[in-house]
């Protein structure tokens, strides 16, 4: 059996570990355009903050490929999948045969179609280790930085620049920061926190035109900068699969076994779309835990085992300068909100289940809430008043507690 994996990040690693749960023998080839040992993309901001280094930010230990019997081919891109021949074609024209193929091609930063963007002298996105290196090279204590996009990537970028540059201005067309994971009320808490560290925000506004070192905004304001970071979102890399005739919607379509519509071709991670059980709809959930679990599922199935990827819900844990934020699910239905200035909590529930939550500051034991969403636990089966106060196993029925704490999990 020969497995070929396109990509070398979370879903790819999950795939390797999935394959090896079932098949210790088959050959695994990992093909990646990046030259690096597998590393954790979200850690690039921590790298610039000095909280980690390139050695420690490796997603798996140095011996990972060897211990898992993986051949690697770094610096090569796959340009084509031929599902009939069961081969992939590389950018140098060579062909590689596979028995089972994993497409973990990830996503690429979306470059907004703004006039004059190409004129900007110092511009980078903030997704890869190479991006982090470039940003570091471009910035210094006298640098004014403009970040386009107040999402997770834009703000993590802002965080790691605090104290290292002269100014940071974040521009987003949304009316609040982190619009994909926070309500306006919650966003305000985080925004106040970041503003304390000197980050400037221009919201409900967008770049209309760039010069080499300034942006003219839709509102007419001008922001001058030395470095521009574009962080307005990502686009899934679906081309390989769609070109080969596979079904692609918002992202690559996969079933619960993480199979694409192409025979023996699997996919997972940021390049895929999937059914969000909290939302009840198809979407792209470009988050790391899901990528790993999809990769793992795909790997197990590729090697002949059986696994299903279910219960995908949006969830995020992120922090900015000591302020932790954990969110999950969707914010619909009734809400329970508690805020004391420092800490903020909002729970959303509907039809007897918890639909989503936002925790800011005190995030202890948040996973108990996440599990309520994931497992769609009927709220009338637990002491909801108790669990509203804080996540705790005490709120569950005695027999549930007994099984959770007294049985192998």
């Amino acid at each position, binding site marked *: 059996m020969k497995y070929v994996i396109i990509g070398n990040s979370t879903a790819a690693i999950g795939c390797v570990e999935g394959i090896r749960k079932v098949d210790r023998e088959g050959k695994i080839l990992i093909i990646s355009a990046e030259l690096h040992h597998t590393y954790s993309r979200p850690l690039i901001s921590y790298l610039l903050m000095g*909280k980690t280094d390139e050695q420690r930010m*490796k997603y*798996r230990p140095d011996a990972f490929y060897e211990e898992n019997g993986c051949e690697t081919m770094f610096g090569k891109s796959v340009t084509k999948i031929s599902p009939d021949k069961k081969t992939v074609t590389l950018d140098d024209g060579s062909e590689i045969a596979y028995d089972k193929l994993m497409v973990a091609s990830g996503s690429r930063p979306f470059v907004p179609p703004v006039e004059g963007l190409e004129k900007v002298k110092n511009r980078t996105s903030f997704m890869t280790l190479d991006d982090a290196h470039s940003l570091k090279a471009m910035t210094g204590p006298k640098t004014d930085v403009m970040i386009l996009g107040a999402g997770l990537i834009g703000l993590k970028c802002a965080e790691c620049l605090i104290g290292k540059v002269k100014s940071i201005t974040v521009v987003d067309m949304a009316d609040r920061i982190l619009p994909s994971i926070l309500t306006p009320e919650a966003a305000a808490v985080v925004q106040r926190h970041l503003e304390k560290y000197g980050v400037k925000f221009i919201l409900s506004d967008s770049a209309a035109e760039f010069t080499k070192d300034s942006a003219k905004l839709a509102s007419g304001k001008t922001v001058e900068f030395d470095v521009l970071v574009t962080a307005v979102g990502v686009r899934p890399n679906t081309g390989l699969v769609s070109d080969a005739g596979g079904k692609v919607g918002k992202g690559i379509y996969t079933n619960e076994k993480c199979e694409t519509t192409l025979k023996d071709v699997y996919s997972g991670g940021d390049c895929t779309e999937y059914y969000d059980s909290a939302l009840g709809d198809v979407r792209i959930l470009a988050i790391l*835990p899901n990528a790993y679990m999809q990769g793992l599922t795909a790997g197990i199935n590729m090697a002949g085992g059986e696994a299903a990827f279910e219960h995908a819900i949006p969830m995020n844990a992120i*922090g900015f300068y000591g302020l932790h934020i954990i969110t999950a699910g969707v914010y619909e239905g009734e809400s329970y909100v508690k805020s004391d200035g420092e800490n903020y909590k909002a729970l959303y529930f509907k039809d007897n289940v918890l639909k989503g939550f936002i925790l800011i500051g005190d995030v202890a034991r948040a*996973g108990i809430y996440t599990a309520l969403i994931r497992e769609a636990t009927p709220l009338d089966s637990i002491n909801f008043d108790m669990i509203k106060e804080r996540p705790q196993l*005490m709120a569950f029925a005695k027999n549930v507690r007994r099984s959770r704490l007294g049985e192998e999990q």
Partner: protein
Amino acid sequence: MKRVYVNEQWCLGCHLCEYYCAFANSGVNDMVKALKDKDIYPNIQIEEDKDVSFAVSCRHCRDPLCVKSCISGSLSISDGVIKVDQDKCVGCYTCILACPYGAILPSPRGVVQKCELCVDNIGGTPNCVKGCPNAAIVFEER
């Protein structure tokens, strides 16, 4: 594999498990020296409400959500024991978001900490189990 199991029927809410845990993880060989006048950050924590109490620590799940969710690769399974490499951990708390037991805790160092069954400190029976006066916490194969 032997794991820590908790039976709330016998938990007295004495909180000694928390202290024995903190002691085992202190790296100091005298409990007084390790804990006197210090705030403790144990990996096992008591939940209590009226007459019910029980200790919660990592269940060392066979199929752990925390390890799968870890963005930095600092959580891993070694011989069934889920361990955290605190040098690698950046404190993103994705594991706290994922753990359905609330058993992974923020550490005072800004990263996370969790029960590792005392494998790398005292070895043998975990200290919470040894310190429990009523066998409410046991270390056994189930």
